[in-house]
């Protein structure tokens, strides 16, 4: 018996308890170890940039329910496109709120480790980039929701209570963070990274936005115009035409101050790229890769009002819309000699309709069988509605499609298959921010100069689009110009909200909203100008003193 016990004791000793039960992890790296190294920290910064791809995965918070886009055959989130039913339960709002906070937390972690990680020459700049990104996310939140909870610490435990800060506090936080970022980031960054001009552009927009608000400071528009001019830094728009700016493969150009990067080499899979190209316009069919055309969701189609913003001198019409569609759609981009390319569809604008027969006769070989879907007014009372905005049946291909974001090189067919960058800040917009800021300072002359710079690039013949009377410079003119220049670039809802024109213009130009009585009126007669704090966010927060926005209580 003793021998047995001895043997048993020996067995137990063979396997040393404490060692035997230690975890061995060969796959994952411990976060704390990783981020303290220079390369690990770099990984974290990259992850923070990558959050932008998630935040901009869907367009609805940015483009639905505006004066220039309505739902096509496929409805987006109805609350966002029609306001009346917008409620704290709206899933698209919740997803946005959650995704932005996830991105913020990655930035928080990065800023936390910036103080602990190995010192490198790039560290100050990286810290500035992280501060910029975090401020950018808070700017999205404050515009959408008003005051939100400022969470600026790295979270490592199951913290369940968060307070709501005021809108004013959030703006102060954003401004102080961007001021700091401005002093840290590179003057001439690697393409895709945040540089000083991008920080100035954003800061200008933040000041401009705050200037409209009740707590805005007297100097905000001055700051905005100064910063915008500094971000322009003497560059004009002559370096690239509007068509080239949106030509596939030319995303790396001088106009871009900041864009979300989507190189094909940096996608997890063929459909984890940009979704921007898929959302605007009609469905073309399901055989895209085989037949050479892009995938579209039939979600957001332009309003009649948008089509009417152009005239024949504006190259942005063809620059934005595929008005002449080849049988193989992508021939437009990748076939230099199109003499053999048959045209399957033609969408003549108002000024082209009269010459349709002549257009067909000009090239009978390729145009004889072209289906023509002309600009056609459907009704004028009480509003102008054209066939393109409201066809009888939403069939494939019968309305024009936005081509600015097309990617003929996409490796897959479907949502998220585009390899093209999403432009978040570009020089033309900087000019328009400056114009708006000068207008708000009542310096209309300078404002007109800034607008004319943008118009100057777009016009077919020099001078054709130029404003000459500074009294024509109004907020509406600036919003129209932004529509022509920036359609689909994820600014519109914020532009309308910032300028206080959301209710007015949407009720005028959005057919779905104006058909609803008091679409914007929520509880207590309050207007739905801010988005609701998502119900799940309120429920999961153990701090019950977190007020809902007016109109949704």
């Amino acid at each position: 018996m003793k021998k047995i016990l001895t043997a048993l004791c020996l067995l137990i000793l063979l396997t040393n308890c404490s060692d035997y039960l230690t975890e061995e992890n060969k796959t994952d790296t411990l976060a704390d170890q990783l981020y303290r190294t220079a390369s690990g920290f770099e990984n974290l910064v990259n992850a923070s940039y990558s959050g932008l791809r998630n935040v901009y995965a869907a367009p609805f918070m940015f483009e639905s329910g505006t004066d220039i886009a309505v739902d096509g055959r496929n409805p987006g989130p109805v609350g966002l496109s029609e306001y009346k039913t917008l409620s704290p339960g709206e899933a698209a709002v919740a997803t946005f709120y959650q995704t932005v906070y996830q991105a913020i937390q990655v930035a928080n972690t990065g800023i936390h480790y910036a103080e602990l990680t190995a010192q490198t020459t790039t560290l100050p700049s990286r810290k500035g980039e992280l501060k910029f990104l975090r401020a950018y996310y808070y700017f999205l939140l404050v515009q959408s929701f008003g005051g939100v909870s400022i969470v600026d610490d790295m979270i490592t435990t199951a913290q369940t209570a968060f307070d709501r800060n005021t809108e004013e506090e959030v703006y102060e936080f954003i401004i102080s963070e961007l001021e700091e970022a401005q002093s840290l980031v590179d003057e001439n960054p690697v393409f895709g990274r945040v540089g000083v001009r991008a920080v100035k552009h954003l800061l200008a927009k933040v000041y401009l936005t705050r200037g409209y608000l009740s707590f805005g400071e007297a100097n905000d528009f001055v700051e905005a115009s100064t910063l915008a001019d500094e971000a322009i830094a003497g560059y004009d728009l002559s370096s690239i035409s509007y068509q080239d700016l949106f030509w596939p493969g030319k995303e790396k150009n001088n106009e871009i101050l900041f864009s979300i990067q989507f190189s094909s080499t940096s996608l997890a899979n063929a459909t984890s790229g940009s979704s921007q190209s898929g959302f605007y316009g009609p469905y073309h069919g399901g055989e895209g890769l085989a037949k050479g055309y892009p995938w579209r969701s039939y979600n957001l189609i332009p309003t009649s009002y948008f089509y009417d913003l152009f005239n024949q001198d504006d190259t942005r019409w063809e620059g934005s819309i595929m008005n002449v569609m080849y049988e193989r759609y992508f021939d437009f981009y990748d076939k230099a000699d199109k003499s053999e390319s048959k045209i399957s569809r033609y969408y003549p604008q108002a000024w082209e309709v009269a010459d349709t027969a002549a257009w067909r006769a000009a090239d009978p070989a390729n145009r004889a069988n072209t289906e023509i879907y002309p600009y056609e007014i459907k009704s004028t009372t009480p509003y102008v509605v054209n066939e393109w905005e409201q066809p009888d049946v939403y069939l494939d291909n019968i309305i024009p499609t936005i081509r600015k974001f097309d990617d003929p090189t996409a490796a897959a067919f479907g949502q998220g298959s585009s390899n093209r960058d999403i432009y978040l800040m570009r020089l033309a917009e900087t000019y328009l921010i400056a114009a708006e800021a000068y207008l708000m300072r009542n310096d209309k002359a300078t404002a007109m100069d800034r607008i004319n710079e943008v118009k100057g690039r777009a016009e077919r013949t020099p001078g054709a689009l130029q404003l000459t009377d500074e009294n024509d410079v109004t907020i509406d003119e600036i919003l129209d110009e932004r529509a022509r220049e920036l359609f689909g670039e994820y600014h519109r809802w914020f532009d309308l909200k910032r300028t206080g024109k959301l209710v007015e213009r949407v009720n005028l130009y959005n057919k779905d909203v104006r058909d609803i009585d008091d679409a914007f009126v929520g509880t207590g007669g309050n207007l739905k100008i801010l988005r609701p704090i998502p119900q799940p966010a309120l429920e999961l927060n153990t701090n019950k003193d977190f007020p809902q926005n007016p109109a949704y209580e």
Partner: protein
Amino acid sequence: MGLSVILGLCFSVSVLAQNVVTGTVTSSDDGAPLPGVSVLVKGTSKGTATDTNGEFSISASSSDVLIFSFIGYAAQEASVGSQTSINIILAPDLQELAEVVVVGYGTVKKTDLTGSVGLVDNEQLVKRGTVGAVEAMQGQVAGVDISSSNGRPGSNFNIQIRGVQSVQGGQPLYVVDGVIMPEGIGFLNPQDIERVDILKDASSAAIYGSRGAYGVVLVTTKAGSNVKQKAVISYDGFVGVRKAARLPEFMDGDTWWNWRQDSYISDAIVRGQAIPANPGYNSTGPELQRRLDEKDYTDWASLLIQDGRQSNHWVSLAGRSEKIGYTFGAGYQDEEGNVGGEKYKRYNFKTSVDHVLNEHWSAGLNFNLAFEQQDKGSPNAMLQAFRMNPVMSPYDVESGELIVSPGKDEIAGQPGKYHVDFTSSVNPLVDQKNAYQEASATYAIGNIFLQYSPVSWINVRTTLSPRFTSKIEGQYLGRDSEGRVGGQPYAQRQDNRSYSYIWDNQITATKSINDHGFTFMGLYSTNYFVDEMTFVAQNNMDVSAKSYYNIGQTGDLTKVTSRSEYSKETLMSFAARLNYAYKDKYLVTLTSRWDGASVLSEGNKWTSFPSAAIGWKISEESFMSDVNFVDNLKLRASYGFTGNKVVAPYSTMATASTGTYYDFGGTGANGLRPDGIANQDLTWERTGEVSVGLDYSILQGRVLGSVDVYNKKSKDLIIRRQMPYESGYSDVYQNIGEVVNKGVEVSLTTVNVSTGDLEWTTTLNFAKNNNEVTKLYEGTDMILESRGDGYNPDDVIQVGQPMGSYYNWVTDGVWQAGDTEAATYGQREGQGRVVDYDNNDVIDAEDKRFIGSNLPDWTGGFNSTLTYKGFDFSFSVVARQGMTYYSPFHAEFTNHEDRGRAKLDIDWYMQDNPHTDSRSSNVYPQPKNAGIYWRTYAVGYYRDASFVKIKNITLGYTIPKQLLEKTGITHLRVYGNVLNPFVFTDYDGFDPEWAGATFANGGMSSITYQFGVNLKF
């Protein structure tokens, strides 16, 4: 004193005459000699064993009594007297196998059992003719609820013992010959399984500590140590045909076209637009109209469905030669599904050798090897075959050849113009040839043991049990397959390898002192598990690529993605069990296991799982001695704790391995972000259970069975607690929440008729389990936990309701013409209505209700066996009642938003319109106008999936022995068997058993017709 005893013994030995006694021991079964029978002189340790010919030789005096004993046979005694030759015929003790219960690290006599353990023996397992053993166990043991997850060859079966106890889900611990098998027991050939013992209650399962909470399934394969007789070769096999059965009724071509037109008309009405002149027509040319006029429709499903084959062959050799017992076996099984390309094959090899070295030492080894090959066919072909509408044809109008996209049959010479214009989905007949999925697996498990008995009542045993499994899953999608038309081939391959060892060291001591009987078992065990994974995939392969065996070799190499993972887990355990019996009437079992686990954080690693059980053999009491009709009556009661081991490795560590993707101007800049918030305090979920049972046997065994009741509370449930959005993390795992399972189990076996030639036996079992979530985390009485069935906002875990609950608005009809109330709710004629419970004219969150749970209200089984002379006739029935599922089948085939795909033959509502006849229905709304509750909130797709299945019916005939005498065959039985012949259910999808399966995973119901042979030489 001591000296005098020894002297006395010497003296007595020297005065009595010693004779040599010889003889032969044979079996009463077939008269064959029995080797290895123990021959012992009663009252001494003097003994021998029979040789290969069953012969023995021992010296004994005339006053001695010899005891002949052999496992599996009733022992006999014989007085020597004046005999020098004693021939013994041993009769098999048929009850003995069933009389012993395997309880983990040991066995106990069934009469001494204090816990709740179910048994399925080999005969029950092979009788059904199933490919896997688990399916054969369905409905055999009360409270062991078994169901299939799909209808394809090689499908998985889930086992739920006494209810669901964890949000994380769980399966019982599978132990095959001492080897813990996380993969389950599907790799074994049922023919090779000697018995399956199922530990149901916590007091029994506590010996497996942190892994016992979901019950323990102990599988004993045929082992050399159990072999009694000389060498026997046996063959068991069957062949079968598998036919698709009980296919749902789909709309015929005319009805479907009516549906399509109605959907176009509805759409126009809803949008306030003019109704199109030719609703539903969107193609060019006369072909579509011709098909409609001539009713030239295609039944797509029938083009893909085929008859499958099935076979199972098992050959084994088992024998004993004195001290060595052995079993060798080899098996082959295959099954072909009802969709082309679906195949399953399995090869099994087994060896088991047991050697009694001498009276102190014995050793042995068991080894099982299995290879499995599963062809799953195209991932999309079956789905598309059911989706394709009857108006489409698989053949091109002009060429008559198979067309890639039957919905886009282009008119020759008119690009962009189509004969029919529906969908770009790929022709399943083409897809089937261009896409496939496969899985193959290898299982190698075994154990080697060495046992030492220093004295007869102590056993020390060390067992090393290695295990290796490997699984390769591959997928190839060619150019002409769904989703890839016009693109380049795609392939992926995933390799999983898992290896483990368990080293058990145990000591068992059994001793009786007067009225007190003790058995003590002590265990020290170490467990080591490692899992490895490699994944590679490539998009845009070269068109010449034909399989997943050339990833990274052709095409666009920038489209190769890969991933690898490693995970390791160790466990160190001590366990002790004491069985005590007083006067063989009062029984006590005390058990405890202490588990130390690598996956828990420092300071939390060790946990103990104690239990206690008592038994009272009432029938042994003197007051029962007059109650003649009772053979056996025993009351059992137990209380114990077990753990549910659902903490994944590394989950208490804050890691950063979530890959992110980015670039700067085309230069890759991929990153790693934190994986989440690590909870250092995680520990095992813990279940405490009270169980009381009564075993009874009356009328000389004509009626026997047991009744059990239990109440168990599982707490510290690991729940993914949703974090506030502002935290930036979605959730964190915490030990929160409680669930209670209460239930009753009844089993009853009756011998209804037992005359000389005729015997009829039936067994019935029934179990009812009530599951209720009793606690979640503070401030929360409901959480969402997606079950991945296609619509997930309804998947809730709710305090006061069972697990697996659905929570949604309740549909109660269709708004009819003239229902003015519809407008109050923002709805219109034809749309699906839901109940406004609080009558406040608004449908809001307050109007949602508990729809049902996917857990059964009760389960049961019934088996009947009738034998008459050589004939045997039996059948079995399995019942599961009260489950509600969100049915992905109905979400697909009664989808009112869709108008291009085939539809289940339903009656729908259609309002008055100038083109088609109006239709009435108060169940299915108007196509393309189903209303928000059907369209967005999927209220129309819940189905009750209760069913009763006749699992099998068998008729067999055993050829009389006298006819076989000259053939060398000792046993020959032939039989016919039908598997799953009848299903009684209201569910009108594929099969109620997998009503909750997503379409891609489910599949058709089937009936298999088999013919088989059992043969022994």
